[in-house]
């Protein structure tokens, strides 16, 4: 029995309302008006051009990171190293851009983006090959590699890459000088932060969709994710599959990093990854691990993050409430997913009598997710 569209929406709404209801208690304790708070949080991002463009600007890195997560996940890897891969991509792109400043922008921009992708890809190749050839679990290696990337980036930013004026003024803040304006990603609407990267991200989503479902390599990757043993039996090189998945996954995170640099900050500075590495995972999973599904999911998450910050300002509450409510949303929505995936089982849970006709296993969508931790 397929869950109807209406039922899906109702489930999602109930889950969100549930999270908000719990959050309201927290708000009431600090004497904040939950209605005003939620008004700012839910409608703020959509109420004007500023909110909408800012949401899209936030959705851009989320989408790019999310695409990488989708590729990895489909190949049977949970990539929680996107934070580090973003930093490495941003670093690689920035180094290229700073050293080839004289090059015309039309050439330098693609080169910088490519370098960003390559930086992330190489950093993704590390856990990829460790997993494929040394059986080092990717959760372990990526957690460690995130911390390493953070230190490595700060080292370069305060040393070889630092903006010379930071030294001459003695402020010493670890950031590079501004990149040449010729390679900034064009702002699509003046006076907003919506930049060309948003379009790039959407194009990439389509590209990844075609790659995963319309090419042989994409098929192989998905086969590896669906079952390594079966894939091997079918003559697919599982190791190469795992490695290429992580290379691509890291590449997209790296692209997200350099797009943030070129579109938002115009220079590299600490804090560039801004937690997108983790929220990107959530966005990817909410997008049903489908490249096109990640588009609305990233947009929704961008709005949620922005709206939550707006709520903090609307009713003057501790910033920590924002994170609490975001966490609640994730828990409620992911928890409610079963009502969509397996309505029968969920009904049984609720004590409602199981429908007579036991549904086929088809309650999973076609693109059923592979087991999270591959064997």
């Amino acid at each position: 029995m397929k869950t109807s569209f209406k039922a899906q929406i109702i489930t999602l709404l109930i889950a969100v309302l549930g999270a908000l209801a719990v959050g309201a208690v927290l708000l009431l304790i600090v004497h904040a008006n939950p209605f005003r708070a939620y008004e700012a949080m839910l409608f703020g991002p959509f109420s004007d051009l500023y909110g909408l463009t800012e949401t899209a600007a936030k959705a851009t890195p989320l989408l790019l990171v999310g695409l990488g997560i989708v590729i990895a996940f489909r190949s049977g890897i949970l990539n929680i190293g996107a934070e580090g891969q973003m930093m490495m991509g941003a670093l690689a792109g920035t180094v290229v851009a700073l050293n080839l400043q004289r090059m015309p922008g039309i050439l330098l921009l693609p080169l910088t983006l490519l370098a960003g992708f390559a930086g992330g890809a190489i950093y993704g190749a590390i856990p990829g090959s460790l997993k494929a050839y040394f059986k080092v679990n990717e959760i372990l290696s990526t957690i460690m590699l995130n911390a390493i990337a953070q230190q490595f980036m700060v080292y370069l930013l305060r040393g070889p890459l630092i903006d010379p004026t930071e030294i001459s003024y003695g402020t010493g803040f670890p950031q590079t000088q501004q990149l040449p304006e010729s390679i900034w990603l064009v702002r699509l609407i003046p006076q907003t932060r919506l930049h060309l990267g948003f379009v790039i991200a959407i194009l990439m989503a389509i590209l990844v969709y075609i790659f995963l479902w319309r090419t042989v390599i994409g098929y192989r990757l998905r086969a590896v994710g669906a079952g390594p043993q079966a894939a091997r039996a079918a003559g697919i090189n599982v190791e190469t599959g795992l490695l290429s998945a992580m290379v691509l996954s890291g590449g997209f995170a790296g692209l997200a990093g350099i797009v943030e640099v070129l579109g938002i900050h115009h220079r590299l500075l600490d804090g560039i990854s801004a937690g997108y590495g983790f929220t990107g995972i959530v966005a990817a999973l909410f997008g049903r691990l489908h490249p096109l599904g990640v588009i609305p999911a990233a947009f929704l998450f961008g709005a949620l993050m922005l709206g939550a910050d707006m709520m903090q300002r609307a009713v003057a509450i501790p910033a920590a409430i924002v994170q609490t409510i975001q966490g609640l949303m994730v828990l409620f929505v992911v928890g409610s997913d079963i009502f969509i995936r397996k309505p029968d089982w969920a009904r049984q849970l609720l004590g409602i009598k199981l429908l007579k006709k036991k549904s086929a296993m088809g309650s999973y969508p076609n693109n059923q997710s592979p087991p999270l931790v591959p064997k």
Partner: protein
Amino acid sequence: MINQLLEFSTIIGILTTAIRLATPFLLAALGEMFDQRAGVYNLGVEGVMMLGAFIGFWVSLRTGSSYIGILAAIFAGVLMGLLMGLVSITLQAEQGISGIGLFMFGVGLAGYLFRITIGYITNIEGFQPIKIPILGDIPILGTVFFNHNWMVYFAFLMVPISWFILFKTTWGLKIRTAGMTPEAADTLGLSVVAIRYTCLVIGSVAAAMAGAFLTLGHTNMYADNISAGRGFIAVALVYFGRWNPWGILGGALFFSFVDALQLWVQVLGLKIPYEFAVMAPYVLTILALVLAARRIWEPAALGKPFNREGD
């Protein structure tokens, strides 16, 4: 500098620091091991640690007793474990994502509660070191190993206890079955759901205690983000230790030893950029695993929700 590093007092210093640093990793990772052995993995350890750290601190501050504080932290751990169980076991949610949700919720809630209950940085007595009679008097070893507060001893004692539970009791066998072949466990009449819930609660309690160690047994204060990513390292150490308490002990000690060493190397005068020192434990942990045997084993049903009806 090398000379100084090899001095007795320095070595004692490094080892003592390593033991203290290892304690929260050990507690949280042993707990997470139970989760994963039963087939559930919890990426939200960091969130549970933060909440445990705060609740433990707050209750200690209000009641004046760190023992009541630790009990409160344990209670918070139970609740967080049940929450994770509800979402990940009963509602069969994707565990990677529910873990991240739990992480955000825990970190946020701890920060929020801190603001509304205390709201300024203050400190408490905390647990004082207890010198173990006789053993504590052994030169060097006594200082390094037998002059800590009870939570440190507890964490290290949990290693053989966990090993015993897991490999020498029927209950341990049940846990492992639930993680390896839940279908078989079900056929044998075991309640996979109950086993997994229990293990999640154990894991969460351990994580909350790890957090409470930071506030009650280590820094004796609470500040925003006190856990600073330790929960994630603990999860990584479970993989390092290959779901074996002794392996986890090795991983926690190795990571903490390198960390302690790099702090001391910095203090004694370092000629390379400090960032590379800070990186050292992370780099070496990966390398150690690469160089170790390539044989790997993990609970076969890890991460897969169990559903008697079948999918």
